[in-house]
């Protein structure tokens, strides 16, 4: 036993010496985030391969949401926007050495379109190769924001060698500045610099991505030099890291908004006055400062300031006004009973709100809303669920209200989102529910044909209409918090979360 103990202690000491002698490697960047790379399939985990710059899409997007050339250098559509042609970038080599041509792109897209996508894939009737460097899309109907769809990671282009005979992804062969070297799902992805990349070569030779499940762990990892960049920090960790000399915190507004989804067919929520009262009762400033530690994140409309022309700067700032809320409810026939609870014709104002656990701030915000609406005499039952409860409740009609963090970056053109979620009374899984507003629907259809100044005017009208009609109640805009070690130079955060932009970074000794 004594010998065993001695050997064990020796091993521990060796561990200590080994551990102590391991400074961060000068040629390797370590990134940590909560995202789990579960599969090589782009439909399931393409977002992580896109962020690590292994795969690329035909169309890119800049910080302002403007479309940029990607693997396609240019594109055009017929007058009616039913036929689109994309001209491919010449001399692009995949990581296996094969050349990217129209046939490879068509094969990759055909397989991608056989899997779930964040848009209605029925829209695309056919994808064909016109010549070696031109790909044509034939659509079922006119669709002006079509190019924006191709920025989504599910539409990234893989080399033919990526797929087996059943079209399953067995090797991830992309065309980005980094190539996959190790895949250890769901905890680690390693990449190395791709020497034959067509664009500017990356500076950092090797990059590791490690899944860090807890924000506290990620914060400690960057503080303790176990990681160089960590994403998705919680407010408490941000406060901790702001005091660290070795780390700098990056806060970037992203196109994601915390919204209350409402079932407008519910008799309690069908009246505009009631919805306005619910919105006025929210203390958004308190939620932004007290819960999220992000003053100024209060939302007065669905699309935030990061969404260019879709954000209407002239709308009044959101302010809680309980008196006006009470007056609106009284006008709608709601009176307080002896217990201070609202009632109408003997029925109490009781609502149910579904939210989900994967975004821990949502449950805290939901309970804050519960307390704020209680001041009006409304009882709110909060249910913590899986995110899938929201589309499920939308489709079976059981949902009354839901608190959710709506991502508008999946397809960077909000017109696509509006067409999917706000163009019919049925609405969309993550959009409006049973909201019938023919004037808005008409304006939306009109906008799909507008261009130039007309388009900008229509867009502003659409956003204003949504803010006034309140089919959904906006609560807060998201600010993404990341922390970066001092040795990393050239860091920038992609508000559309498509790329970690590691190819632009450098490591300083």
């Amino acid at each position, binding site marked *: 036993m004594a010998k065993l103990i001695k050997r064990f202690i020796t091993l521990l000491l060796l561990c200590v010496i080994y551990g102590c002698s391991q400074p961060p490697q000068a040629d390797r960047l370590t990134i940590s985030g909560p995202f789990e790379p579960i599969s090589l399939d782009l439909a399931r985990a393409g977002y992580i391969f896109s962020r690590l710059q292994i795969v690329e899409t035909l169309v890119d997007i800049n910080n302002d949401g403007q479309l940029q050339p990607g693997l396609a250098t240019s594109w055009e559509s017929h007058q009616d926007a039913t036929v689109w042609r994309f001209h491919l970038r010449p001399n692009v080599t995949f990581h296996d050495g094969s050349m990217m041509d129209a046939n490879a792109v068509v094969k990759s897209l055909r397989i991608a379109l056989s899997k779930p996508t964040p848009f209605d894939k029925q829209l695309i009737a056919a994808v064909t190769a016109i010549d070696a460097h031109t790909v044509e899309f034939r659509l079922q109907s006119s669709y002006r924001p079509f190019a924006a769809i191709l920025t989504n990671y599910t539409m990234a282009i893989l080399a033919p060698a990526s797929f087996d005979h059943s079209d399953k992804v067995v090797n991830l062969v992309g065309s980005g500045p980094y190539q996959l070297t190790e895949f250890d799902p769901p*905890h680690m992805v390693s990449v190395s610099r791709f020497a034959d990349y067509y664009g500017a070569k990356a500076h950092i030779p090797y990059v590791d991505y490690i899944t*860090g499940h807890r924000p506290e762990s990620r914060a400690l990892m960057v503080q303790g030099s*176990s990681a160089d960049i960590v994403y998705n920090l919680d407010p408490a960790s941000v406060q901790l890291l702001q005091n660290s000399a070795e780390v700098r915190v990056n806060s970037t507004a992203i196109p994601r908004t915390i919204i209350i989804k409402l079932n407008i067919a519910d008799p309690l929520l069908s009246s505009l006055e009631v919805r306005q009262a619910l919105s006025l009762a929210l203390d958004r400033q308190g939620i932004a400062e007290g819960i999220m530690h992000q003053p100024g994140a209060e939302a007065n409309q669905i699309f935030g300031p990061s969404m260019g022309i879709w954000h209407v700067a002239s709308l009044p700032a959101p302010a809680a006004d309980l008196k006006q809320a009470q007056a609106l409810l009284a006008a709608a026939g709601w009176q307080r009973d002896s217990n201070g609870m609202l009632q109408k014709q003997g029925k109490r104002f009781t609502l149910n709100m579904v939210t989900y656990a994967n975004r821990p701030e949502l449950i805290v915000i939901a309970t804050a809303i519960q307390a704020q609406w209680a001041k009006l005499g409304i009882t709110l039952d909060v249910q913590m669920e*899986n995110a*899938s409860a929201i589309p499920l409740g939308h489709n079976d009609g059981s949902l009354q209200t839901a608190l959710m963090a709506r*991502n508008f970056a999946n397809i960077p053109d909000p017109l696509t989102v509006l067409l999917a979620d706000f163009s019919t009374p049925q609405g969309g899984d*993550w959009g409006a529910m049973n909201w019938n507003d023919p004037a808005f629907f008409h304006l939306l259809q009109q906008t799909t044909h507008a261009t130039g100044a007309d388009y900008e005017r229509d867009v502003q009208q659409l956003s204003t209409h949504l803010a006034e009609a309140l089919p959904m109640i906006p609560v807060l805009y998201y600010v993404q918090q990341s922390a970066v070690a001092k040795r990393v130079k050239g860091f920038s955060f992609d508000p559309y979360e498509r790329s970690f932009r590691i190819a632009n970074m450098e490591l300083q000794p």
Partner: protein
Amino acid sequence: MKGILIKRLVQLLMMAWSVGTITFILSRMLPGDMAYRIAAGRYGDDAVTAAAASAVRQELGLNDPVWLQYLHWLGELLQCNLGSSLVSGNPITAELQHQLGYTLILAAAAILLSAVIALPLGLICGFQANKWIDRCGLLISTFLRSQPVFCLGLILILLFSLQLKWFPVAGFDSLPHLFLPALTLALSLAALSSRVIRNSTLRVIRSDYYLFSRIKGLSRQQTFRRHGIRNIALPVVAFMGIQLVGLIEGVIMVESLFAWPGIGHGLSHAVFSRDIPMLQGTALTCGVLFVVINTLVDGCCYLLDPRSKMTC
């Protein structure tokens, strides 16, 4: 010994069937729509839609009668095929091999480290029972045991990673990454096992046979070697075996804190996303490990205690 092994083998087969069946029934009794849950697990919260859920339902035959799905699983199990994960699409055996491997490494390191801490501490406290060192041991054990393992891990990270810079905070690709999660678990385990060792030592050194061996003229060392070690070890081995089983199933907080891959994390995700093959495979493997570890403990006790040979 042969009897023990045959008994355990029958137990193993019964356990495999019952754990799989109970998991199958329970997972179907959970609230929520399976297709939507699986779609959320596969494509992420932002991409779960009715269309994605419908595609999942069709692909996985979730509209088939439940009994048909059960028979299908049972048939596959008889061919030693645990199927593929509904979320990642990877074979369950590959997922388990990866996750369980890391859990076993962590559990083994933790139990070894806890033995290194608990054995000397427990023996000293036993020999010095009710003296100041024993009371200090009780105080430290109570303090460590009352700490949530997550809190203990954070304290160790602050000390060893951020202050001393001896070990990395989190990760899993090298040996130093193992030390802090193993030490976190080991301290929590040793807090309890050191008291078990202390009590076992005290019981043995106060026994008549131990006193008699001293009276007949054996030295302290001789007495301890001949009459102490085996008698003290019997309850300790059994207890640490139970601790090891508990470790394999319950390290989720430590895995999560130290970004260490493992079966605890895999199991929790399988529950959230209704990944039934993964759930069944994980529960089955944990059950098998439970029987195997218990068999090993029985074997050790059999070798340690000559009296058990007579009862067998």
